[in-house]
């Protein structure tokens, strides 16, 4: 995988303030799992900031390994996601971009492999409540994992602020499932082709 792609999306998310309090990116390459080191400046990643996690026994790495189709993972702390975690607030889709890119519901789970894998079967994002908490997204390439995180944060903010208007109206779970399938199999193809070439 092109480390420039990893650096590019890490920088973009860093500039958005998603890594205040820490975060990391993980990716699969040649049957190995790599990640940015903990506590590095994700605004400027160098080769020294990358480690091989393949043999490590870390929960998010094991959950990532179990998601066979996913090649990239982002662990971050965007502010409105963190607010949802603080309130133990499960995010249900009230906007089409969330239902297409992430799925119908983003749950709040402990940092345990089994729970994370279960959550990733249903959505490409999850809220983790343990410790300081974090949001995790996965994607078929770094671009998808990055977009999922931006869409997750946007939808967290939209749902929280919709309380001012009496609350967000949830989409139908059946329609959401269909929309997600259509997006994954059809509309994301052109995007994916270009972004896979990047990595």
């Amino acid at each position, binding site marked *: 995988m092109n480390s420039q792609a990893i650096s590019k999306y890490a920088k973009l998310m860093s500039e958005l303030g998603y890594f205040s309090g820490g975060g990391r990116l993980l990716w699969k390459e040649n049957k190995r799992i790599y990640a940015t080191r903990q506590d590095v400046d994700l605004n400027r990643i160098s080769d020294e900031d990358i480690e091989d996690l393949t043999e490590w026994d870390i929960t998010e790495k094991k959950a990532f390994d179990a998601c066979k189709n996913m090649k990239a993972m982002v662990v971050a702390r965007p502010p409105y996601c963190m607010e949802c975690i603080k309130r133990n607030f499960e995010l249900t889709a*009230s*906007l*089409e*971009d969330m239902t297409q890119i992430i799925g119908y519901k983003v749950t709040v789970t402990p940092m345990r492999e089994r729970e994370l894998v279960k959550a990733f079967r249903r959505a490409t994002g999850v809220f983790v409540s343990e410790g300081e908490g974090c949001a995790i997204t996965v994607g078929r390439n770094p*671009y998808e994992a990055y*977009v999922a995180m*931006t*869409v997750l944060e*946007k939808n967290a*903010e*939209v*749902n*929280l*602020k*919709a*309380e*001012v*208007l*009496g*609350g*967000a*109206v949830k*989409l139908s779970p059946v*329609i959401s499932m269909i*929309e997600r399938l259509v997006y994954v199999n059809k*509309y*994301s*193809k*052109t*995007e994916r082709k*270009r972004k896979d070439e990047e990595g």
Partner: protein
Amino acid sequence: MKKVDERLCRQQLVEYGKTLLELGLVQGTWGNMSVRISENYMMTTPSGLDYNTATLQDMVKVDIKTLTYGNGRKPTSEKSLHGGIYELRPEVGAVIHTHSKYCSIFGAAQKPLQVIDEELKKLTGELIYVSEYAVSGTKALTKNAIKALAGRPGCILANHGMIACGKDLEEALAVCIAMESAAAQYIEARYK
């Protein structure tokens, strides 16, 4: 209707796509735009391409009535929405559709937006209506959006985003920015 230079339309769509990204009104490949080039044709942004990398050749010429297009890129999946607006509103020369955050809050809540700021009202009108919900890319969405627009410059799409119209892209963008600003003002004055 005077025919507009196609190359110029393509150039404008590329430039305005980057502008929408810079202003944070769209992310990545989401949102779409179109320009009317004649009575029968529009030029639209392509489906699924990042605005940062889209070129003049990526823009797609689409028949407004039949929604057919050539052999190159596929046009936006919301081409029906754009075509529907051009068919019913002959004065509209450009349409911008975004999933911008603050208008999306009103879309998520399915609530209309009362515009308070006098300057913004000149561009948006006093009340921005919200359409009834319909799945994106469907004829129902086009029908509901046109009903919510009526003769107005913009509307909010339930559980989706917003549409802004103008005689050209410059005017449509001004409406788009005004709608998002009005929505932001309303929400931030009340959110604790």
